[in-house]
């Protein structure tokens, strides 16, 4: 057991860093797409990104801090060497993390002033792009075994330890990978067909770019020591990861291209749910008051959905799923943070009735101009022929 302790701890650190990449990486990627928000729907794109990052925006740093603490508690000399050699890129990353987190909060709390909001938005987007870039550079420098200390001074200098083609390629790869992650997540964060299409296209572009950058990084890896390159590219330990990565890449691109078909299925489900504005709701006729199914129907009706008696078992299942997701995604759970972040005054009082559970703890008094697209009604509009 103790013989494998270092490997075990390294595995734990690896898991924590992977969680950081998957969870916080998507937040960074959201910022990248905020920077590259283009086209007629750029305001909606930005609103969607803010909406998606909203509730959890800084908690994801916990994974980075956890990995860091495990690192210095378990491998202190290595930690010390990394911190000396990577002082500059890590400091830049820290400035980026501070600016990003604060700018996001300030943009949301800013309260009305459009110019200030744009300024904070620009800072948020720029910091979100620079931070993963320098973090990627650090990973690249470590992977290329560029960090050697000679009598406590980096052998390649304070710049040379990380300022080289391979680390920089890894930096670009990181940004691209995070953008890909974010774009894929964002397609599932909205019900607006056009926005979805925007992010599907972006995901495909990011996927191709990521592949190209990965190839470039692989080609540049020869500047790492021969041993390192062998380990990175051809060793038997690396093989499963290469296969997994390749399979995921193909999967993502295939899903992106095939998503038209999937969307057909998805919208099929959505169309049957009446999506909140009530216009398409076909209310079941006089449900009997006692039966549980009728109660379910009434509940579904209340939550803004209709129930078609003709639907098959499968479609009612998918319908129920839709409704659930609709419910949980809709206003109630995300509005509070939006309202809080907007700094609106509090109006909601706790309702006395247990049934009326939609009134948020902190609610918005008037619809804010930059509110995210009301999903349900948009979905309806999109679903209408």
């Amino acid at each position: 057991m103790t013989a494998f302790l270092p490997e075990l701890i390294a595995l734990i650190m690896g898991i924590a860093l992977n969680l950081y990449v998957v969870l916080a990486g998507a937040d960074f990627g959201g910022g990248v797409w905020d920077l590259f928000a283009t086209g007629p729907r750029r305001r909606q794109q930005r609103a969607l990104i803010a909406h998606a990052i909203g509730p959890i925006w800084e908690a994801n740093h916990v994974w980075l801090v956890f990995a860091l603490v495990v690192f210095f508690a378990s491998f202190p000399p290595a930690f010390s060497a990394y911190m000396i050699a990577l002082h500059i890129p890590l400091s830049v990353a820290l400035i980026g993390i501070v600016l990003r987190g604060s700018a996001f909060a300030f943009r949301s709390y800013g309260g009305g002033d459009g110019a200030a909001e744009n300024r904070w938005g620009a800072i948020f987007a720029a910091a979100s792009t620079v931070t993963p870039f320098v973090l990627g550079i650090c990973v690249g420098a470590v992977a290329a075994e560029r960090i050697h200390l000679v009598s406590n001074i980096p052998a390649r200098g304070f710049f040379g330890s990380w300022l080289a083609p391979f680390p920089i390629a890894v930096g670009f790869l990181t940004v691209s990978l995070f953008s890909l992650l974010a774009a894929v997540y964002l397609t599932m964060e909205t019900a607006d067909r056009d926005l979805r299409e925007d992010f599907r296209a972006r995901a495909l572009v990011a996927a191709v770019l990521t592949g190209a950058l990965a190839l470039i990084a692989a080609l540049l890896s020869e500047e790492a020591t021969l041993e390192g390159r062998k380990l990175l590219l051809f060793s038997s330990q690396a093989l499963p990861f290469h296969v997994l990565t390749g399979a995921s890449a193909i999967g993502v691109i295939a899903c992106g291209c095939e998503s038209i078909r999937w969307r057909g299925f998805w919208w099929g489900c959505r169309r049957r749910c009446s999506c909140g504005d009530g216009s398409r709701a076909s209310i079941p006729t006089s449900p009997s008051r006692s039966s549980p199914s009728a109660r379910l129907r009434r509940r579904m009706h209340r939550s803004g959905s209709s129930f078609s008696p003709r639907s098959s078992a499968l479609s009612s299942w998918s319908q129920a799923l839709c409704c659930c997701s609709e419910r949980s995604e809709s206003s109630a759970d995300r509005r509070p943070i939006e309202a809080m972040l907007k700094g609106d005054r509090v109006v909601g009082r706790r309702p006395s009735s247990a049934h009326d559970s939609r009134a948020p703890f902190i609610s918005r008094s008037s619809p804010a101009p930059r509110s995210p697209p009301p999903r349900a009604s948009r979905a309806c509009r999109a679903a209408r022929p």
Partner: protein
Amino acid sequence: MTDILAARSQMAVSLMFHIVFAVIGVAMPALMVIAEWRWQRTREAVYLDLAKQWAKGTAIFFAVGAVSGTVLSFELGLLWPGFMKHAGAIIGMPFSLEGLAFFVEAIFLGIYLYGFERVSEKVHLAAGLVVAIAGAASAVMVMAVNAWMNAPTGFRLADGTFTDIDPVQAMLNTAWLPMSVHMVLAAFVAVGFAVAGVHAWRLRQGRRERFHRLAIGLSLAMAAPAALIQIVSGDLLAQHVAEHQPIKLAALEGQFATQSGAPVRLGGLPDAEQGTMKGGIEIPYLLSLLAFHDPNATVRGLSEFPRDQWPPLLPVRLAWELMLACGTILAALSLLVAWRRWRRPNEWLRPRWFLTALMVAGPLGFIALEAGWIVTEVGRQPWIIYGVMRTADTVTPMPHLEVPFIVFTALYVVLSVVVALLIRGIVLRAEPNRTAVP
């Protein structure tokens, strides 16, 4: 500016910035839980209003505090790699427990802020309570690290490396208990008086009488007892310092010569060259009495120690005086508050002078807090681990450290201004339309 000074300044700026947010994260959840508990007991809507306003403030400070905390965890390594190289294994445990507490705090704060309509009232209140407890726990864990740096234990030093490391014993060092009690109380005092000050400012301008009155009542109910207990806690901590860090005590009190029946000096500046105090009033025997509970006890003076082990005398002395002054004023104000509430329960907040006093006292808690940290951190110099490792030996070999120092300082100054403006906005926005609410 030398690199070591730049590194120390950068660390100081980062800590002084983060402490404000960390402390608010400890005490603000307690306030919002108290307000919500009052609401559940009385069903007066104004208490719920208060809980929500305070929750909103908590959310902003928590967000910025989370970011500045991330920065600090990196800066430990970026600026003091030598320290982390040797001590990382020892302080890893309290730091990971602190991370755990922060995680719990973040999760339950999420439940508290977004789960109001999804969980039952009791669960919601309990979630708030968990946030408050986890906040205090993370403060206690960070204090374990700092206490260890002041009273190192749990290792053996052999040829410049630490062996036989026992992280549990290191965590349970002698300074931990007095320091963490002092810190948590300081959080309650600083935040309680600051919140009372903000509400007193609005009340003085004739806004929303009842809302602000209740807010002041609740925040002072937390802060005033804490300010009085803080005197006892400070005494315990000072005794620990007297016993374990005699140089620090001597620097704090300007005690140059070893002396039995040493006096306490009020005011006065240390003159390191002459080895005397300039100005100030002496109260004989008091220092011996306070530090060792014996008026004739011998207090060791700075002259007993080599000059290169002295901390910077002037900043330590000034910060010490400032902390004591602020603490004394707040304790006196707490007594005044108690007396007024007892004698005039219905109109204890009526006179304008009293509101002005509360308003002026608002920042004192935070000033005392920052000064207290200067006392303990600068007072520990030139050691990073007291008596074991010198700060200068652990600094990063990276040249031109003044550049990151200037950049981070500018960043934090800008952030402080923006946060202050935002909070002002929240306070002001909380008010119009309020006349309708009872």
